[in-house]
């Protein structure tokens, strides 16, 4: 058993929607009790993903809330934050309510994030208070950055009054928009226009300055560059209320993957250099980065089997994130779980339900992880409706065996139960 309070050896009894008992040598439980074998496994609070694109409403051919939540449960998640760049955007109470309705009966807790601006167009503030009243805790125009500094300032100020978090996709559009991969030696060689790392640094530094000015809480999505991390580190030291996430693909893949011209490796922000990857790993170790978040971005084949210029950016990640993090980052399991469970739960305001210590009376949102299970990623076998994984064919060590959501085993022995 590993949670924020440490690790210990114990059996866990779940009763109804809560943890009933946690002690060694529990037995029985009476007739009708389901016994899940956790031999050789880590039992942990369920994972929390701050960054999943579930595509519903509007692009159900790529993913639905049901399929995305199933993929999440198979990946060990009991809660995921659904990004608002749907069609229509989740920029009103009506769309948020629709997402919440569709999430009923899903394999995990689906928490819609709201858009900062109407239509994610960066001009008019969306009705954040109405959405916050429905439980929305994170607001973002993700996919787009909030380009206008004045709009971003007002958003931060307004959000601070509601106690919610503003999260930004940091790429300065005038520098980044024309590019399709990291800018540098390789993009120059391949003849693909680049998105320079400074476009991220500039927007991160602007956002940090505005967070300092407003005193508001700021969350930085999917940081990808050493330059951006340096900026976060400095601002932290100055007391700015900032949290930051990084995506698994930025931790184990570099721009070298783009040499194939395979659009499965097209993502925003782009895969960067080995030096950036090393800096991100250092940021995980020294605490500059608070969370590993998937940026799960499903796309149907016809959006990826096209020229690199025309391909949709993004890659799926819910089912591979934990294995990549446990098996390939060289971090202790406790640290990985902090980055994927209780720290993101705190950022998303979900600590009372997810990521908390596994003690009697706590909500039974748990995952059981076999850290030594070796498996090969088969794109077509993913539960996500889309198969655009950058890890197809990769051998991964570490997989979720069971997931318990609200007391129900939604994944048993690597199989989804609903």
């Amino acid at each position, binding site marked *: 058993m590993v949670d924020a309070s440490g690790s210990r050896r114990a059996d866990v009894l779940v009763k109804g929607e809560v943890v009933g008992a946690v002690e060694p040598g529990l037995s029985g439980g009476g007739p009708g009790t389901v016994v899940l074998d956790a031999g050789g496994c880590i039992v942990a609070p369920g994972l929390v993903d701050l960054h999943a694109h579930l595509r519903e409403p509007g692009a159900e051919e790529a993913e639905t809330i049901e399929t995305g939540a199933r993929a999440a449960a198979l990946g060990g998640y009991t809660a995921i934050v659904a990004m608002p760049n749907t069609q229509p955007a989740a920029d009103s109470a009506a769309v948020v309510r629709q997402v919440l309705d569709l999430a009923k009966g899903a394999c995990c807790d689906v928490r819609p994030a709201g858009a900062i601006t109407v239509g994610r167009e960066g001009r008019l503030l969306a009705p954040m208070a109405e959405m916050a009243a429905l439980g929305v805790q994170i607001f973002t125009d993700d996919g787009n950055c909030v380009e206008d500094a004045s709009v971003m300032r007002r958003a931060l100020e307004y959000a601070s009054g509601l106690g919610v978090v503003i999260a930004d996709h940091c790429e300065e559009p005038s520098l980044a928009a024309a590019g399709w991969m990291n*800018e540098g030696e390789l993009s120059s060689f391949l*003849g693909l226009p680049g998105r320079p790392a400074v476009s991220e640094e500039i927007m991160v530094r602007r956002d940090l300055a505005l967070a300092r000015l407003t005193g508001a809480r700021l969350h930085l999505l999917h940081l990808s560059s050493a330059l951006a991390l340096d900026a976060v580190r400095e601002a932290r030291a100055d007391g700015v209320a900032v949290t930051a996430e990084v995506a698994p693909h930025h931790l184990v893949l570099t721009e070298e993957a783009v040499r194939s011209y395979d659009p499965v490796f097209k993502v925003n922000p782009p895969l960067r250099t080995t030096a950036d990857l090393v800096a991100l790993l250092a940021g995980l170790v020294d605490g500059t980065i608070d969370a590993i978040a998937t940026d799960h971005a499903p796309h149907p084949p016809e959006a990826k*089997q096209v*020229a690199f210029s025309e391909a949709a950016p993004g890659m799926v990640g819910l089912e591979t994130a934990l294995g990549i993090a446990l098996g390939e980052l060289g971090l202790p399991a406790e640290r990985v779980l902090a980055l994927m469970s209780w720290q993101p739960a705190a950022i998303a305001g979900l600590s009372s339900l997810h990521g908390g210590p596994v003690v009697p009376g706590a909500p039974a949102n748990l995952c059981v992880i076999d850290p030594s299970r070796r498996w090969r990623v088969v794109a077509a076998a993913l539960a996500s409706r889309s198969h655009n994984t950058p890890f197809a064919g990769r051998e991964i060590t570490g997989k979720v065996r069971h997931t318990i959501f609200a007391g129900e085993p939604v994944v048993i022995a690597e199989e989804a139960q609903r």
Partner: protein
Amino acid sequence: MTPRHLLSVADLGLEGIDEVLRLADTFVEVGRRPIPRVPALRGKTVVSVFFEDSTRTRLSFEAAAKRLSADVMTFTGSSSSLNKGESLRDTVLTLEAMGVDAFVVRHSCAGVPAQVAGWLEGARAAGGAGGSGASVVNAGDGAHEHPTQALLDCFTISRERERRFGHSPARPAVLSGLRIAIVGDIRHSRVARSNVIAFSTLGATVTLVAPPTLLPPSLSGWPVEVSQDIDAVVAKSDVVYLLRLQSERMNEQFLPSLREYTATFGLTGERARLLGPSALVMHPGPVRRGIEIAAEVADSPISVITAQVANGVAVRMAVLYLLLGSGAPVGA
């Protein structure tokens, strides 16, 4: 070892380039015959798949294929119309199912010929319908490469120097010791990327001349020198290779004005007088007279722009023959 595809001029290496140039010599001779046609690729089908308009390059390839007695099909379509449904992969596999031996691919995005080759190889490995193992020839992909342009440029330099000045080329590095300047929009140029590789492989020293905005973000690893001083470079170059400047570069803030570009980087009549007695001036076309090159220079004897076009057919015949031919001698 002949590669299956020609995606980058680097795929050929020094020996491969030399082989193409030698074959091209033969095909220039074929082109002079009353019936400029050989049966070398009879029964083969070549499809030109052009997602970006380029009538000149397409016709050059199609003429080359026809002179080799191949059957020729043409697919043209803007990439945007494709985007409305069928994926690029579907388009390629559909064409392949019609029985195609070579795809000549042009696209505004870098990497499409490599993707096409990958999809064909994938279909071949899967052993499904088609899976014929067709070849792919890159006819220009975005700002990446234009290998046959580089080959015809190497051929033209070598041949014109021999014809005009009696410089018989050292084989296989036929451009040994030459100083070649490439001037203009290197950043967006597939021609520049292929020519940097080909010229340096064949022994030339390459200097890029452009304002920094029109150079790639990084030149690390490129076998080139860089200069902003066009007058000094022109004076000591054996070949001055001018690139076409697209007007939209002004709107994208790469340059203040065409007039300023011509004044600082254009091969004006005055600047052309700095050229040495055995220098050649080249341009991949289409030429914008008065912008990157003065009309009087383009039309002067030092310009080999027309020879480039003429040699294009023979060089493309050589490439198709090399990739698709049986290896038997070129028939009479």
